[in-house]
């Protein structure tokens, strides 16, 4: 795609991005349409004369054999799965018995335990994963991680993007309550009051009450810095090979051997409580009214990321940059550095229209966590940023890289249009 590089094109991009924020609602509409279309198709089929149906069936069977043969030669097969040891099929409604869970075993080794009395559906399988609908109850997931893993789960208005983790997700439609606890790896939640792209990491538990409009993210494990093993302090460069103005000149060279531990003020600080509840804009407002710099000085890595998000959502790009850069400088080994880079890219793209800078930040996110939960989105946004910056060669290169990893990703259409 190539929107005009003018104010209307920028406005259109903004609108498209805002529309894309609500993936959960749109997925529900697609699912509803799918069911209605399937029923309509079935009714149309039954109305056809029997004799014609016999001939059509025979022709279809021959055609199906040809189609299957063709597909085996040209495309990787989607994952197969079993339900309690028997062959499973997409779209089939799964109802776990009251006394025990239903076990879904996928051909890549992924296992989903649909809890007793829960209701779910495997919407589709692909070569790299599957999309699951949790209609009620809970699922305990053990997803096998590969560099191409692409799993998704829909629970009510929430969408969970998974790349390879262990987690438990619960949806109670009557109470409109969503609970997600991650024990290994991380996922990204979007939709409804979770907003867009909210990561939930190992040791964290997200509880959302749609009816009450409340969101709470708690740490079930001790918060500690983690070594990522990836490069740190490496200067980001744009596609022209020059160092981008925003990233890491202040973070380059040798990383400090010990992480600076910020002294903590009393846990009763208003902005802290609001961060814990997930009310990011109010948390930012509270931190701003009591001294934003002071709050940043005292904040943990997770809190800095939340304050940065709150500032960004409140339209305060300056404060967002302040919080996110503080996180990256003070916690050089924290796993939130890459999400902070992604958020800085969004600030540069959406609020500052600094597309070259945005592309550099998205590249940083991917470099620091190439298999992280935001890597795919960062790759897609990088394509758009390079294109908007006028760097078509860089955008084409990024598009090729994206398609090699995510041929069915959300930005695949954008990538392909650049390569036409």
């Amino acid at each position, binding site marked *: 795609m190539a929107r005009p590089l003018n104010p209307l094109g920028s*406005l*259109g991009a903004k609108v498209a991005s*805002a529309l894309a924020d609500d993936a959960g609602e749109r997925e529900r509409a697609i699912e509803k349409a799918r069911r209605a*279309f*399937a029923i309509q198709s079935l009714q149309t089929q039954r109305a056809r004369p029997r004799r014609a149906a016999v001939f059509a069936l025979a022709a279809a069977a021959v055609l199906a054999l040809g*189609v299957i043969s063709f597909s085996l030669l040209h495309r990787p097969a989607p994952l197969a799965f079993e339900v309690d040891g028997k062959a499973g099929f997409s779209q089939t409604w799964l109802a776990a018995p009251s006394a025990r869970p239903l076990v879904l075993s996928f051909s890549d080794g992924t296992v989903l335990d649909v809890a007793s009395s829960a209701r779910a559906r495997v919407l*589709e399988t692909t070569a790299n994963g599957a999309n699951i609908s949790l209609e009620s109850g809970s699922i305990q997931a053990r997803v096998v991680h590969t560099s191409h893993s692409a799993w998704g789960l829909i629970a009510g208005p929430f969408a969970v993007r998974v790349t390879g983790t262990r987690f438990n997700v619960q949806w109670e439609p009557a109470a409109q309550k969503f609970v997600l606890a991650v024990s290994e790896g991380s996922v990204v939640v979007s939709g409804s009051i979770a907003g867009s792209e909210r990561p939930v990491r190992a040791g964290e538990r997200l509880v959302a009450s*749609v009816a009450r409009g409340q969101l709470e993210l708690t740490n079930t494990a001790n918060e500690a810095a983690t070594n990522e093993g990836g490069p740190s302090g490496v200067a980001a460069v744009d596609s022209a090979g020059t160092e981008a103005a925003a990233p890491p000149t202040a973070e380059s060279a040798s990383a400090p051997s010990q992480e600076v531990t910020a002294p903590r003020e009393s846990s009763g600080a208003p902005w802290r409580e609001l961060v814990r509840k997930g009310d990011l804009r109010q948390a930012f407002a509270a931190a701003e009214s009591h001294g934003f710099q002071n709050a940043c000085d005292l904040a943990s890595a997770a809190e800095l990321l939340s304050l940065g998000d709150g500032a960004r959502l409140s339209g305060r790009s300056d404060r967002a940059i302040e919080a996110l850069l503080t996180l990256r400088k003070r916690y050089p080994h924290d796993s939130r550095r890459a999400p902070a880079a992604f958020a800085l890219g969004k600030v540069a793209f959406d609020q500052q229209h600094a597309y070259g800078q945005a592309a550099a930040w998205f590249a940083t996110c991917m470099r620091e966590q190439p298999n992280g939960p935001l890597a795919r989105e960062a790759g897609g946004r990088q394509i758009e940023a390079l294109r908007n910056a006028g760097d078509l060669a860089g955008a084409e290169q990024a598009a090729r890289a994206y398609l090699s990893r995510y041929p069915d990703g959300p930005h695949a259409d954008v990538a392909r249009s650049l390569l036409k």
Partner: protein
Amino acid sequence: MPLAFNGDETALVEALRAHHPGAKAAFFQRYVKLVERMTTHVLGFDAELADVLQEVFAAALSSLHTLHDPAALEPWLSTVAVLTARKVLRGRSRRAWLRRFTDSAEDERYEPATAGVDVEARRALRAVYTVLAKLPADERIAFALRFIDGMELTEVASACSVSLATIKRRLTRAEHRFLANARNYPELATWIGGSRWQDR
């Protein structure tokens, strides 16, 4: 039970015409994202999105005989989606007089409750679709496909089943009308106020 389908467009069209039991589900699965994206970009958030999507695919199946080149299934389906969206917009326009007798709150476009999203973007989105509602359906569609969906001019022309010259004239009118109305919305000032543009 439906069979997994991984053929090309020609094979899919043949399967549809042969009434293969899995072809319709495969057709829906393969193109629903494209159709949903285009439809949402033209209509905005819409409580009847599911109905519109179903209508697009039903219309596609019933008019499959008009597809002469199976390899062009995707652009042909885009045209079906545009025609369906046009029909929806015109139908709503004809029913607009009923709004005088309804509670204005009921007439607000459905917008999901998503606390915590980009405030600026939400405001701009709402304003854009309020302005687009004032445009004739054909101009609104051309504008949305070009600037929101990001289609090339040739793609917009193809989706709207008109010539390149026609779509350029239509877009010129749409831009002028959009800009004239957008001046009343401060949330669009960042993009509209005092800015010049060259490319279309």
